């Protein structure tokens, strides 16, 4: 029982990170119908920017962890947002009307480009960050096994939760959210009623990248080690999460992310660590066979 709860906590933390990345995939897919393959690299860059931020701040204000955290978070979000914008402007906007495969290849090219760019600029070796948030508490325990929850896990889960509420408000209440949903339904019609479609799509990339920045910061704090290659697997899993939840659906992305995190944690805890990714993909295939539109996705009606 204690072991189960421990894995549950670990899985939720991991799932929160995947869910945050998955939102970027699902938003972009919803609005322009393409897999933004380079989104995982955006998350990787966010992790690097966060690490650089902590290293910059460490000699200045060693005591105020909360302040440093907020500064690094804002900095990482700003820088990655620019990356998201530039990505769309350079690699995707010229291909808006091109065949879908062309955009996919361009996205894969961008992913390779960004990976090698970071490798060249920052070196191929693994980078590490000393733990910034120490301590934790014991939830409950008996028989020699205590369920331990670190403050860091609490911070990550709370941060994700707060971000989700804020983000939902942005999508449902603001004019950008309305424009975003309108473009998702029908881009031409949205343009006809005066929505700047190009701007809305750019903003979608900016917002998606900024949310991925939170995931990048979280992973830097949680694991403490990053390298230029972390974006690929995280990206694939986050995309899997988005598909699992039903691509184009925002609550679906979060749900899918949490499920993937939980599957991974429980599989690592009870079966084998080596095959955790195989388990993730197998479950994805099973879900798609029995429910091809994902858990919360709307079925696509196809007309001839």
């Amino acid at each position, binding site marked *: 029982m204690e072991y189960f709860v421990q894995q549950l906590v670990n899985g939720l933390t991991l799932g929160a990170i995947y869910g945050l990345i998955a939102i970027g995939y699902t938003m972009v897919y919803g609005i322009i119908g393409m897999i933004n393959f380079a989104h995982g690299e955006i998350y990787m860059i966010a992790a690097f920017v966060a690490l650089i931020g902590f290293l910059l701040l460490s000699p200045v204000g060693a005591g105020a962890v909360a302040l440093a955290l907020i500064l690094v978070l804002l900095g990482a979000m700003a820088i990655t947002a620019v990356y998201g914008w530039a990505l769309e402007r350079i690699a995707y906007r010229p291909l808006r009307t091109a065949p879908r495969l062309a955009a996919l290849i361009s996205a894969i090219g961008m992913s390779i480009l960004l990976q090698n760019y970071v490798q060249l600029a920052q070196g191929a070796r693994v980078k590490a960050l000393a733990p910034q948030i120490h301590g934790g508490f014991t939830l409950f325990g008996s028989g020699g096994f205590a369920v331990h929850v670190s403050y860091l896990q609490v911070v990550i889960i709370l941060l994700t939760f707060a971000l989700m509420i804020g983000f939902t408000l942005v999508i449902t209440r603001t004019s950008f959210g309305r424009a975003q949903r309108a473009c998702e339904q029908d881009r031409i019609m949205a343009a006809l009623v005066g929505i700047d479609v190009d701007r809305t799509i750019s903003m979608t990339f900016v917002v998606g990248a900024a949310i991925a920045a939170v995931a990048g910061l979280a992973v830097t704090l949680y694991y403490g080690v990053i390298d230029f290659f972390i974006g690929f697997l995280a990206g694939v899993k986050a995309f899997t999460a988005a598909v699992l939840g039903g691509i184009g659906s925002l609550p679906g992305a979060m749900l899918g992310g949490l499920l993937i995190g939980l599957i991974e944690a429980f599989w690592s805890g009870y079966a084998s660590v080596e095959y955790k990714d195989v388990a993730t993909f*197998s479950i994805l295939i099973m879900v798609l066979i029995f429910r091809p539109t994902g858990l919360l996705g709307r079925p696509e009606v196809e007309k001839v």
Partner: protein
Amino acid sequence: MIGRIVKDAGIAALITFALAGPIVGLPILSGPQGNFVLGSRFGDVAIAVAVVFVGRAAYLALREALPRRRIAIPLGWSAAAAPLGRWFAPALIAFAVLLPLLPFADRRVLDVAILVVTYVMLGWGLNVVVGLAGLLDLGYVAFYAVGAYSYALLAISFGLSFWECLPLAGLFAAFFGIALGFPVLRLRGDYLAIVTLGFGEMVRIILVNWTSLTGGPNGITGVPRPSFFGIPFSANPPEGTTSFHQLFGLEFSSLHRIVFLYYLVLALALVTNAVTLRIRKLPLGRAWEALREDEIACRALGVNPTATKLSAFAIGAMFGGFAGSLFATRQGFISPESFTFIESAIILAIVVLGGMGSQVGVALAAILLIGVPEWFRDLDQYRMLAFGAAMVAIMVWRPAGLLSRRAPTIRLKGG
């Protein structure tokens, strides 16, 4: 006008500063006590910002100064390529056949040529699945891996010769193709892409972890080299056997094996091409292309989508398996590292850059994407960076691929 250009270029420079500032300007270095410290490299950032500012300004100024005239390259290219195409493909094949006889064909040239032709073959194999049947496969490398490992394991464990292993490896890969095909029959588009990607990763993870069979991350060493139909290429053959150079009365040269391997790869690639072109004319090939265009209309016309899709997966996978066997026998050593997602992406890029479904286009794209970067191996660090940039640039420049004109399978007579 000048003011507008300066403003626009200034914004571009600012964005470059935001992009490059932290990642390029503040490298994370290893400190003295094993910790990490920040270095600074703002000179490079300044150069990048200056280059972008000047480049953007020059581009905008040129665009203003030159009269607005559409450069007709995109349209003209395809039209000009049509008559070219008639002799271009035979010329390309003739060049490929004669290559080992040319004076500059040393060991390095042939090695690159073998690599390029292997990728041409992989591209043609994937073209069956993506270009003809319209099934987006991001895990093609799985079949390549299955072919390579089948060949290596069969040859080492059972001592089978290359010519016995090759069809078996193709068969195994085809079975894997069907195994992948079954669960994904109902999926399409991006769902299919992600499941095939997952499948490719699963195969790789299993190869890494099933140490007792595959040797895990260390891979398999000592994969037998190809022989000339049972005659080895060694300098000193074992007692009682004849070596290739003895049989033909030649001076021993290590190049013989390379040349033989090159012709082997080339022959198999041409077989792949011939089979694909023939199948396109059969009802099966027509069904593939019809399925790509409209699945519902296909069902209405009585085309069986299950059999059609599975056959495309199986045949595409089989060619991948053949290529994998060739890869294993060429390298003599295989490990899961050779079968990562990036390989799938490169093969898919070859197909899409070549203009989906165009056989000559695939060959050209393979030369461009594999041969040219191989030439710049000395610039190893920047090779993949340029590779990614080239993928983006070619797609932006020609979204439909290099040769997007596809000859129709069937023409109406008269009219």
